[in-house]
C-alpha cells in the first residue's frame, strides 16, 4: 500500500492535524506520527488511511484516480475574464482615515474618466469573449459619476447575455437619479459599515450630520429594496476595534447576515496611521474572539450569522474547487477572471496593485484599455503566484487549502521571495486555519450548530471530523 505524503501540525491540545496534498485531513497523535515517519504503521493505521483516501494500490486504480482527481480540483485554473472592477473617478465626498485608495478631494480635477477613456473602456468591454459579465464600480465614490455608471450599464446590458452590477458606494449622497439607478434587479450595493455608530463616525464620517446622512440612506435603501440588495463590511482598526456585539446587532437589523471583517490595510492615506507593534498577532486575536462571539450569539439567538472569510476558509478546507474568492486560491492567476480599470484607463490585476502604482512604489499595471492586456507581464506575475513548491509551504499542513498573494508581499516587503512565515499573508492564514481546525474538532453543540450553518448543511456529527488514535 502506498501512502501519499502527509504534512502535520501540532494543535494546542497536544494532538496533531495531518493533511495530504489533495486536502484530505484527519487528527491523530505523536504516536501515529512516529509510526508514520518510521515506516512502522500498524494494521489499524493502514485501514484508517485507506478509508480516508490517503493511500492507493497501484497507479490508475480507483483510490489513485480519486486522489488525482481531488488533487487536480484543488488547483485553481485560469478562467475566462468575466468580472471587471471599474474606477470612473478617484474623487470622493468622504475622507476616511484608513482610506486604502488615497482618494482625491471631491473638487479635484483630472481624476475622472475622460470621454475618450469611457469610449475606450466600452470598446475594451465589447472585445471580451465572455457571454456574461459582472461589473463592480469602485472609486473614489462612483456615485459622483452616476452618468458614467448609467452609460456603462446600458452598454453591458445590450452587449452581454447576462450582466450584473455592484456599486461600492459610501451611501453618503443618494439623489433620485442615484436611487433610480440602484432600483434595477441586476444592480447591487456594497458599502462600508464600520460596526457601531461611534466607530463609523470616528473612522469615516467624522461629523454626526454626515453620520446621520449615511444611516438614513442605508435605512432607506434596505427598507425600499430589501436586504438582498445591500452587502456591507466593517473595516477594523486593531488599535481601536468597534463594539462587536453592537456591530452584529447593527448588521442583523439591516438584514445582512454575513460580516466580512477587514483589517485596516496600511497603504494610501492609511499608511500615515501609526499602527503599533505586532499588529498581526492582535488582529488574529480579534478575529478568533469574533468567531467565538458569533458561535455563542448564533446559539443564543438561533439566527445564524457568519464571518465571511472564516466561512470561505472553512469551505476551502472541506471542499474542492472553492476558488470563487480571489484572496485565497492556488495558483492565484492574475488577469484570469477579473481585473481593474483605473481612472486613467490603465489595467491592473487587483485594486492593491493599482494602489502600488498610485503611491509610486512599483508599477504593477498590465496594459490599458487602448493597448489591451500586457500578456508577458501577466505571465511574469503568475510565475510566483502559487504555493506548491515554496520551501515553507511544502511542509505546511494547510498548503492545499491556502493561497498566495504576491502583491500583498511586494506592497509590504518590496519582495515576493520573503520566507512565508515572516509574511502577513502567511501569519494571517495560519491563524484562520488554526481556528477552523480548532472548531472542526471541538465537540460542543454550539460550535456544531454554527459549523453546520457555515458549511451549508443541516447537521454536524463526528464523521465530519475524522480522527485516528
Amino acid at each position, binding site marked *: 500500500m*502506498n501512502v*501519499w*505524503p*502527509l*504534512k*502535520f501540525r*501540532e494543535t494546542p491540545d497536544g494532538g496533531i492535524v495531518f493533511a495530504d*496534498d489533495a486536502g484530505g485531513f484527519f487528527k491523530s497523535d*505523536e504516536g501515529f*506520527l*512516529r509510526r*508514520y*515517519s*518510521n*515506516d*512502522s504503521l500498524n494494521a489499524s493505521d493502514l485501514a484508517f488511511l485507506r478509508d480516508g483516501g490517503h493511500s492507493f494500490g497501484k*497507479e*490508475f486504480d480507483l483510490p489513485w484516480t480519486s*486522489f*488525482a482527481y481531488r*488533487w*487536480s480540483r484543488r488547483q485553481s485554473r485560469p478562467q475566462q475574464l468575466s468580472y471587471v472592477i471599474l474606477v470612473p473617478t478617484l474623487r470622493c465626498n468622504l475622507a476616511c482615515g484608513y482610506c486604502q485608495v488615497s482618494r482625491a478631494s471631491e473638487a479635484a480635477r483630472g481624476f475622472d474618466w475622460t470621454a475618450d477613456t469611457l469610449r475606450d473602456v466600452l470598446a475594451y468591454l465589447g472585445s471580451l469573449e465572455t457571454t456574461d459579465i459582472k461589473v463592480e464600480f469602485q472609486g473614489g465614490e462612483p456615485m459622483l459619476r452616476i452618468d458614467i455608471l448609467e452609460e456603462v450599464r446600458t452598454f453591458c446590458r445590450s452587449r452581454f447575455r447576462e450582466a450584473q452590477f455592484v456599486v461600492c458606494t459610501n451611501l453618503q449622497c443618494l439623489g433620485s437619479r442615484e436611487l433610480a439607478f440602484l432600483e434595477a434587479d441586476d444592480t447591487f450595493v456594497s458599502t462600508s459599515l464600520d460596526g457601531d455608530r461611534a466607530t463609523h463616525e470616528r473612522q469615516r464620517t467624522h461629523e454626526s450630520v454626515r453620520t446621520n446622512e449615511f444611516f438614513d440612506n442605508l435605512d432607506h435603501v434596505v427598507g425600499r429594496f430589501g436586504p438582498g440588495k445591500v452587502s456591507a463590511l466593517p473595516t477594523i482598526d486593531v488599535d481601536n476595534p468597534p463594539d462587536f456585539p453592537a456591530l452584529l446587532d447593527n448588521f442583523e437589523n439591516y438584514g445582512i447576515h454575513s460580516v466580512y471583517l477587514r483589517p485596516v490595510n496600511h497603504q494610501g492615506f492609511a499608511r500615515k496611521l501609526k499602527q503599533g507593534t505586532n499588529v498581526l498577532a492582535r488582529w488574529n486575536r480579534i478575529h478568533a474572539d469574533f468567531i467565538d462571539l458569533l458561535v455563542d450569539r448564533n446559539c443564543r439567538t438561533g439566527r445564524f450569522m457568519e464571518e465571511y472569510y472564516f466561512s470561505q476558509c472553512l469551505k476551502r478546507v472541506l471542499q474542492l474547487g472553492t476558488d470563487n474568492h480571489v484572496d485565497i486560491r492556488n495558483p492565484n492567476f492574475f488577469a484570469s477572471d477579473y481585473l481593474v480599470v483605473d481612472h486613467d484607463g490603465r489595467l491592473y490585476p487587483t485594486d492593491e496593485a493599482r494602489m502600488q502604482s498610485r503611491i509610486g512604489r512599483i508599477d504593477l499595471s498590465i496594459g490599458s484599455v487602448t493597448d489591451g492586456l500586457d500578456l508577458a507581464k501577466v505571465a511574469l506575475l503568475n510565475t510566483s503566484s502559487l504555493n506548491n513548491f515554496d520551501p515553507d509551504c*511544502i*511542509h505546511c499542513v494547510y498548503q492545499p487549502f491556502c493561497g498566495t498573494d504576491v502583491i500583498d508581499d511586494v506592497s509590504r516587503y518590496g519582495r515576493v521571495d520573503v*520566507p512565508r*512565515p515572516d509574511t502577513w499573508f502567511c501569519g494571517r492564514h495560519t491563524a484562520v486555519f488554526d481556528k477552523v481546525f480548532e472548531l472542526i474538532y471541538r465537540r460542543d453543540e454550539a460550535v456544531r450548530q454554527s459549523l453546520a450553518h457555515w458549511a451549508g448543511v443541516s447537521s454536524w456529527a463526528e464523521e465530519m471530523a475524522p480522527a485516528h488514535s
Partner: protein
Amino acid sequence: MTTTLVNTGRLRWKINEVAVEGAPRVGDGHRSANRTEGCGSAAVTVEIAEAFHPYMDAAVLRLQSQHPYASFDIADHGIVVTDSAGIGDIEIRKAVLHAVYRERIYAETLSMRLALVAAVTSK
C-alpha cells in the same frame, strides 16, 4: 555504512557514519534527550535513529532559520542544541524530531508527487 557527503548548495557537510558494534540499536527516533552541562547555557542532545541521519542536515538548516538564537550541530548519533534558552527540553526535542521527520517524509515521497503531476498532466 558509507561516508555520506551531502552538498546542500552553499554549505558542504561531512558526516562520518560509524556503526558501533553491539551498541543498543533503537529502532526509531524515540530517544530521550539528555542534557549535558557546560559550555555556556545547557546543551541538549536529541538522539536521532540511523534511518533519519541522511536528513539531519536539511533539518538543521530549517531549524536554524526557525530558531535563529539557538544553534544546532550534528553529532554522531543526533543533533546538539545549544543556547536554546527559553525553550523547554520537550519543546526542543519535538521541534528537532518533527523537523527531521518532515525532511524524511518530503525526500522519500518526492518521487510520488512528481509521478502524480506527470501522470495527471501528460496528454
